[in-house]
C-alpha cells in the first residue's frame, strides 16, 4: 500500500468481509462516503454493511457495544475525535466493564480521527487519546505513516477489548513512509509483536537525541529528522509507538536505556499526558538521562494559523530545541 488511506481502506474491506462485521457512523454511506471519503463506495459494494447512523454518538457507540456483547464485530466511526468525549460513558462504564465483569471478549473498534493543523478550530482539532489511556480493558492504538493503519485495524479487532483507534486526519492525505523519497536515507526497524514500536534512524549513526512519538506527528518529524541530518549533520532517532495503551514500557526502556537525551512529542496537551507517562515509567525503571516533553500548550486550538500555533507543537520549535539542547 502506497498511502495511509489505501491501507486503511484495505483493512476495513478485509474486516467487512466477515459477516459479523459492520461499520456504523455518521455520513459513511454513499454518496457522501464519510467525512474523509474513507468509506466511499463501500456501502454500494457491500449493501447493508456500512450504515449511516443518526447524529447520536453515545447511542450508536452503545449500539456497537451491544453488538459486540452479542458476538458481532462492529466498527464504529466517530467523525472527529473531539466527539469521542460523547462516547466515554459507553466505552468506559459499559464496554470495558463487561470485559472483566461479564468475562466477555468484546470485538469493537472505534475509529477516532484526531489531530489539528487544519484550521478547524477548538472542537475539531484535538488529540484526545490521553482521555482513554491507562484504563483497564481499553486499548488505544495509533497508526502512523510507519504503522500501516489497515494492518493495525485488523489486529485491533482481535484484541477482545474495546479499541480507540486514533487515526490522524492529516495522515489521510499522506503516503506511507516507505513510499517517500527520503525514506531511503533511513533505517527502519520494528520491535515487539502485533503492535510494535517502530525505530527510525540513520544507518551507522549514534543518535544525539531519541524522540518518542506517535500518530500524525510522525510524518513531519521524519522530515525534520531528515533535514537535521542533511543540513546540520545532527542524527536523531524516532521511536513511534503503535499501542499507547497498554504501552510496553519494558520494551521502550530496553530501547532507550543507554540514551542521554529523550524527548517525548505529542499533539495533545502535555501535562498528565502520554509523554509524562513514558518519562515516569522510564525513570521508575532506573533510567537516568535528560528528559523533555513537547506537546500542545495550555490554550484552546484557535482557527487562525497564528492562534493554532499558540497551542499546537511546531516542528521548527522542536528542531530548535534539539539543536540547542
Amino acid at each position, binding site marked *: 500500500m502506497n498511502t495511509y488511506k489505501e491501507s486503511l481502506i484495505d483493512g476495513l474491506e478485509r474486516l467487512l468481509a466477515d459477516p459479523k462485521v*459492520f461499520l456504523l457512523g455518521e455520513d459513511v454511506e454513499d454518496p457522501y462516503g464519510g467525512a474523509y471519503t474513507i468509506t466511499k463506495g463501500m456501502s454500494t459494494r457491500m449493501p447493508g454493511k456500512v450504515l449511516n447512523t443518526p447524529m447520536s454518538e*453515545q447511542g450508536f457507540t*452503545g449500539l456497537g457495544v451491544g*453488538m459486540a456483547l452479542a458476538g458481532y464485530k462492529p466498527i464504529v466511526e466517530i467523525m472527529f475525535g473531539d466527539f469521542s468525549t460523547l462516547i466515554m460513558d459507553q466505552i468506559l462504564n459499559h464496554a470495558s466493564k463487561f470485559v472483566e465483569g461479564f468475562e466477555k471478549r468484546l470485538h469493537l473498534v472505534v475509529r477516532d480521527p484526531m489531530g489539528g493543523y487544519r484550521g478547524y478550530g477548538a472542537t475539531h482539532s484535538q488529540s484526545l487519546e490521553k482521555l482513554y489511556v491507562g484504563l483497564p480493558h481499553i486499548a488505544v492504538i495509533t497508526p502512523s505513516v510507519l504503522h500501516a493503519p489497515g494492518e493495525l485495524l485488523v489486529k485491533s479487532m482481535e484484541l477482545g477489548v474495546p479499541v480507540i483507534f486514533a487515526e490522524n486526519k492529516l495522515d489521510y492525505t499522506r503516503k506511507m513512509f516507505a513510499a517517500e523519497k527520503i525514506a531511503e536515507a533511513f533505517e527502519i526497524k520494528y520491535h515487539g509483536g502485533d503492535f510494535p514500536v517502530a525505530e527510525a534512524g540513520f544507518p551507522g549513526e549514534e543518535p544525539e537525541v531519541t524522540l518518542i512519538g506517535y500518530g500524525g506527528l510522525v510524518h513531519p518529524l521524519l522530515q525534520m529528522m531528515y533535514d537535521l541530518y542533511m543540513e546540520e549533520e545532527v542524527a536523531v532517532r524516532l521511536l513511534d509507538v503503535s499501542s499507547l495503551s497498554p504501552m510496553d514500557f519494558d520494551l521502550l526502556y530496553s530501547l532507550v536505556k543507554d540514551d542521554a537525551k529523550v524527548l517525548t512529542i505529542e499533539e495533545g496537551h502535555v501535562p498528565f499526558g502520554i509523554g509524562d507517562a513514558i518519562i515516569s515509567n522510564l525513570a521508575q525503571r532506573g533510567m537516568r538521562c535528560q528528559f523533555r516533553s513537547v506537546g500542545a500548550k495550555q490554550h484552546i486550538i484557535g482557527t487562525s494559523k497564528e492562534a493554532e500555533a499558540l497551542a499546537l507543537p511546531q516542528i521548527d520549535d522542536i528542531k530548535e530545541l534539539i539543536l540547542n539542547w
Partner: protein
Amino acid sequence: MDNKEILYKMLLIRRMEQKIESLFSQGLLRGTTHCCIGEEAVPVALSVLIDMDKDYLCSGHRAHGLSMMMTGKPETLLGEIMGKPYGMAKGLGGSQHVYYKNYFTNGITGGMAPVTVGIAFALKHDGGDAIATVVFGDGAMNEGYVLESFNMAQSMGLPVLFILENNGYAMSTPIETVNPYTVFEDRVKGFALPYQRVEASDFDNLFAVLKDAVEKVRTERTPQFVEVMTHRFCGHSKSDKRAYIPQERDDYWHEHDCVKGVAAKLTPAEVEAIEAEVAQRVEEVYQYCVTH
C-alpha cells in the same frame, strides 16, 4: 403460571429483598443496594416470557428481582452481594453488575438501553425469533442516550422491547417536578414507538400486555414500548428513608400492591402455605450464603 406460582415468585423476591435490607442494616453487607420491593410484577412476568436460552435481557441498578427470576437461584444473587465466588459475577459485581447467560445489568442509569438496541441489531441479523428486552426506570427517561436508543430502534427496525417501570421518582425527585407530565406516552410516541401503559397492580393484565408486546417483537422484528406504573415501597438505596414520598401515595399503592392482588385470588390457607414455603426458601438461601 398459576396464581400460586405467581404469588410464590413475587413473595420470594419481596422476602429476599427484605432479608437483604435487613442484612445491610445490620452492617453485614458491604457497599450499597437498590431493592425492588413493590416492583415484583415485571420480573415475575418476564420469568416466563423471556427465554434465557436465546433472548437477551438487560437492566440497571434495581434488578434483584430480575436476577432472581432469570437464574432461579437466589443464592447466586445474595452470594454476589456478599462477594462470594459463586455469585452471579463471582463477587466482582455486587448488587448492580451481574450477569447470567444472556442477562446483563450495569450501574449507569439508562446505559443499557443503547446496548440492548445493539444486541437487537445482532439478533435481527442472526435471523430467528430471539428478542432483546431492556428494563429501566423513569429516571432513565431523561438520559440522552436512552432517547437516542428509541430513535435508533425505531428507525432501524430492531426487535427490542423497552419496559419502563415508572415508580414516580428518579431517586428522590418526583417525576412531575422534572418532566412536563407524569406518564411518558407523549414522549415515547414522539419516537413513533408502539406504546402501551399498564398498572402493575393487576398482574393478569400486566402479563397480557407484556406477553402481547413480546410476541409482537418476536414476530414483527420491530420495537415495542410498555410503560408499567408501579411503586417502590423501599428506599432508593439502603440509606434512603423515603422522606419524599407522601403517605397518600403509599396508601394508594398498599391498596394496589401486586402481591395483594394475586393473594386475593387464593384462599388464606393457600397464601399462608406459600408464605411459609417462601420463608423457608429465604432462610435456606441465607444459610447457604453464610456457610459457603
